[in-house]
């Protein structure tokens, strides 16, 4: 795979309804979204004006937390949130697939990382337009060297981590219009020097009961546009109780619960409007048989 093929998205994003809808669809505490947005704005505001030695801002934010909590979607939706505050009202979104960078050939991973992050990405943004670079599942390219064994992890992987750090340092000074957003499910697996370079490491938590209620309700309301019988279920008081039982599920799983409930009976497959609270409750109960919840990272407040 060529380095250029590791760029899976390169587009100018404006503040249109569809782009903003991506961000709005993720139910997390408001303060999480505000921190992500504000850190980005601050970085773009301050870094062109002040020397790197004074700010130590790398233009890097790491979103971490359990799978299915919306980290990647938030990162992808960030440019539309920023667009209204930049001249030209457009922000570039570049998305990287880190897994394509690793090579079995000796020395190639390091070289490919350098070529991509220090050369190709700045070239994509050579027009100076503020650019959000999404590094999804960054643990694929930034292995914690202190915890990694050279026996299990080839030296090439270690050197690839070095190359990421070097590229971040270079870009921090030379390209203040670049803002990297990394996502990871495994902060313990990330290199300490990488985390140190993150201007903010923001936990995207599992949804609490209120957030789960909002997620399931919004899913039902989307379906209700096609199957009106679901509107009553979306507004039913019992949905809050079901949401409380669902605590421990991630947001993605909570959306799937609605469809799992629909799939439990053939008549709800035929007519989704006939879905009941009992169907939903049963689907929530069985969903815990399918997933291992990541305890201890639930939200304190609903969005």
């Amino acid at each position, binding site marked *: 795979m060529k380095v250029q093929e590791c760029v899976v998205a390169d587009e100018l994003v404006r503040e249109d309804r569809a782009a903003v809808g991506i961000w709005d669809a993720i139910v997390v505490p408001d303060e999480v979204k505000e921190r992500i947005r504000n850190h980005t704005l601050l970085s773009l*505001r301050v870094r062109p004006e002040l020397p790197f030695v004074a700010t130590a801002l790398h233009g890097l934010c790491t979103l971490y937390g359990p799978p299915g909590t919306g980290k990647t979607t938030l990162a992808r939706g960030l440019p539309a949130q920023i667009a209204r505050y930049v001249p030209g009202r457009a922000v570039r979104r570049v998305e990287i697939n880190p897994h394509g960078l690793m090579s079995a050939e000796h020395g190639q991973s*390091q070289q490919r990382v350098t070529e991509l992050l220090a050369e190709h990405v700045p070239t994509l943004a050579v027009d*100076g337009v503020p650019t959000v670079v999404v590094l999804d599942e960054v643990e694929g390219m930034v292995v914690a060297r202190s915890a990694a064994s050279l026996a299990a992890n080839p030296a090439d992987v270690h050197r690839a981590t070095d190359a990421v750090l070097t590229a971040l340092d270079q870009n921090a*000074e*030379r390209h203040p*219009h670049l803002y990297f957003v990394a996502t990871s499910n495994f902060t313990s697996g990330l290199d300490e020097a990488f985390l140190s370079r993150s201007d903010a490491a923001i936990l995207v938590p599992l949804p609490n009961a209120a957030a789960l209620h909002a997620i399931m309700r919004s899913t039902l309301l989307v379906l209700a546009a096609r199957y009106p019988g679901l509107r009553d279920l979306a507004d039913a008081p019992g949905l809050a109780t079901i949401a409380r039982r669902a605590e421990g599920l991630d947001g993605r799983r909570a959306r799937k619960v609605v469809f799992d409930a629909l799939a439990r009976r053939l008549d709800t497959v035929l007519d989704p409007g006939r879905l009941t609270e009992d169907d939903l409750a049963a689907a929530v109960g069985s969903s815990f048989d399918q997933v291992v919840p990541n305890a201890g990272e639930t939200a304190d407040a609903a969005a």
Partner: protein
Amino acid sequence: MLRRRTIAASPRRSASATWQVITDLVADTIAKSSSLSRADAEQAMSVAAPAGRMLVAGGHLDRHPLVLVAGAVYCEITTISGSEALTAEENLNPVPGAADATTYTIHLPTPDPVQAVVASAVAGHDRLSIAPPAPAQASSASGRPLIDTEALREAVTRR
């Protein structure tokens, strides 16, 4: 945008072979332009070859870079010699950023004692120069505000 490429020289390659690698890198980069030709770049590097081989053989390019300036490309090309050349990793892919270039210049260094030889070799060629290139821009965005503070102020006021 400043970029750097390092090419392994002696003992991994002879001076001629090293210059050929540099020639290919420059030509491959220029070939990305829609208005410049690879053959033109190869011809320019061919004219500079006698001086270039001397710069490589003398180890001058280890310390004094050849600089290719073409549109958004500002690439310093140096060599590495000795035992490190045996294990050096090279990036020989075209330097990104030349797609919109309409002209280019190859700046050759003129260290002592080969200054006169290099100057003589490149004299009169449009694409070759011994003048130091203008410094690379740190970034196309530097010095320019990236945030519309009025828009930000309005948002703060509306809250």
